[in-house]
């Protein structure tokens, strides 16, 4: 499974919805995730991709879409 597919799986798990967002679609403005799901998603990303995301990187914009999450994870790899 590719990274984007894994991100989508995490979004589905966190949102408890069988969503299929476009890569650039805002996960929050679209209502797929709410503010309180964001910490859960970040924790799941850390666990799944074995990265520790420092607080200074926790700008919600970096985690607003699949493309942005993918780009962030790429920058950390």
């Amino acid at each position, binding site marked *: 499974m590719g990274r984007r597919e894994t991100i989508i799986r995490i979004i589905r798990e966190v949102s408890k919805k069988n969503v299929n967002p476009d890569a650039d679609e805002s996960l929050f403005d679209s209502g797929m995730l709410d*503010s*309180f799901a*964001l*910490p859960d998603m970040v924790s799941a990303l850390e666990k799944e991709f074995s990265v520790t995301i420092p*607080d*200074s990187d*926790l*700008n*919600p914009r970096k985690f607003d879409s699949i493309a942005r999450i993918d780009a962030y994870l790429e920058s950390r790899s």
Partner: protein
Amino acid sequence: MSFIREFGSYLPARVVGNEEMGARVGCDAEWIMNVSGIEERRFAAPEETVVDLALKAAEDCLQRARCEPRELGMVMVASGSAERQFPGPACSVANRLGLNSTPAIDLPMASAGSLFGMSLAARLASAYGNILVLGAEKMSSIILRQPMERGVAILFGDGAGACLVASDKGMARIIDSDIHTDGTFAEDLRLEDGKPLEMNGRSVILQASRKIPRSIDDLLRKHGCEAKDIDVFLMHQANQNLISRVAQALGVSDARFYSNIRRFGNTSSASMLIAAAEWAQQFGFTRGQTACFAGFGAGFNWGALLAQGAV
């Protein structure tokens, strides 16, 4: 060594329910409850000031402690909603308590101010004696400013809390505290002169939900205990969902977190002390019982404080 000698509080009489709040901001009462866990909040009278609110909490606390104002060695007032830039409310509160040479310090810190005040007072009490820490907020004067952001306006209420910290005796010994500041996201929760409160809720929740549990965990580990060992958590009443998230992160039940946000909303720097005062009056410390205080607010400033029943 320092002690929590007493708590006190003051809540304005006017109750503003979600029906009224929803009508003001353009949403329904049920939505407010679902996103915040808040059912009602208090609004101060138009003529009431932050100083008035703080003074009433101070008087309540001193009366409960049977402590005369002249026995105070220092006064601290935390507020993010004071009416003027300077002087802050601390000097006026001290003056109205009849104190004209006792140092009175302002902590212009929204939400985390009373936690920082308690932490500082615990360290200063050995030098200054009794220190009265106050958190007082008139958030209604801010949240109704135009353009009104409904997601912000629904959260806040007015009130004041107090804690008397002493060096010699009290209901609980303050074991230690852990306070931090990180200005990386300072723009995400701010109040400019005369303007509406600006809050990036996602950023606040994301940072708070990680920083608060970490601070609590670090403090408890330093003293050889874990969250499950703590009898009660007295946290800044920001949002019921955030309180639940912090409990979840620490692996303890929500029931360990005393909560009154349903009735008073988020009273910013006053909320933790209002909650503590209510808890102390309903339950109170027993000998050996542990309480962990925690706060998070604009800055961002955050931290935790550990106390243990001494009576």
